[in-house]
């Protein structure tokens, strides 16, 4: 069992119609491959940087889980077969999940403070491009 971070880009139309079903599908896939989900979050719908399978917008699901290493390929294959999932990314974490979340919180704190020092008051600008600022990952 290794700690993984998984991000799934799902069809915004299907997610808007029935978010529980789409999220359930993703969770179901993970559990099917023996993953123990430790954290699961949904980001707001946001504009994609480029078109994927005819979609200009998408919903991101972010999961942190533990999974046996040999299930990774099978999970990728299953994601490709699931219509609701447009794209997926699995990253193996170096630390276990609680440590990772802690480190990530520290990281975001440091980085955000740096933004403030370098360009004070620039935060409002983010809202101009369609409120993308709001769609940033919540600081864990």
């Amino acid at each position, binding site marked *: 069992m290794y700690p993984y971070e998984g*991000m799934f880009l799902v069809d915004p139309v299907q997610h808007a119609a029935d978010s529980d079903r789409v999220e359930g599908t993703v969770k179901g896939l993970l559990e099917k491959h023996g993953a123990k989900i430790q954290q699961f979050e949904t980001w707001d719908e946001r504009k994609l940087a480029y078109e994927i399978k005819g979609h200009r917008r998408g919903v*991101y699901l972010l999961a942190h889980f533990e999974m046996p290493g040999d299930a990774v390929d099978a999970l990728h294959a299953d994601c490709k077969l699931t219509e609701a999932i447009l*794209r997926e990314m699995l990253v193996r974490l170096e630390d276990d999940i609680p440590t990772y979340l802690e*480190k*990530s919180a520290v990281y*975001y704190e*440091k980085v955000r403070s740096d933004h403030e020092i370098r360009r004070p008051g620039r935060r409002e600008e*983010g809202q101009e491009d369609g409120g993308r600022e709001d769609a940033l*990952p919540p600081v864990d």
Partner: protein
Amino acid sequence: MARERRDKKRDKKKKFKRFKPRSCRFTRLRVEFIDWKDVQTLQRLCTGQGKILGRKRSGNSARFQRMVEAAIKRARYMALMPYVGT
């Protein structure tokens, strides 16, 4: 009016050409890794066209430049950042 604009442009060009030696922001902040989901930071390390800034422009240390590259490429794959600007 037009002249003003031209002057502004020229100033910009000058600024662009002259790099100030900068220290690595990540070394200074003492971060342990670079999160590929942190689009706000990664965007600052890209040009308007979406190209990754070189070490001379960004001032990153070799270690963090490697991490930044990997992070931006991951973000691009997930369509969080563009491969090419529009």
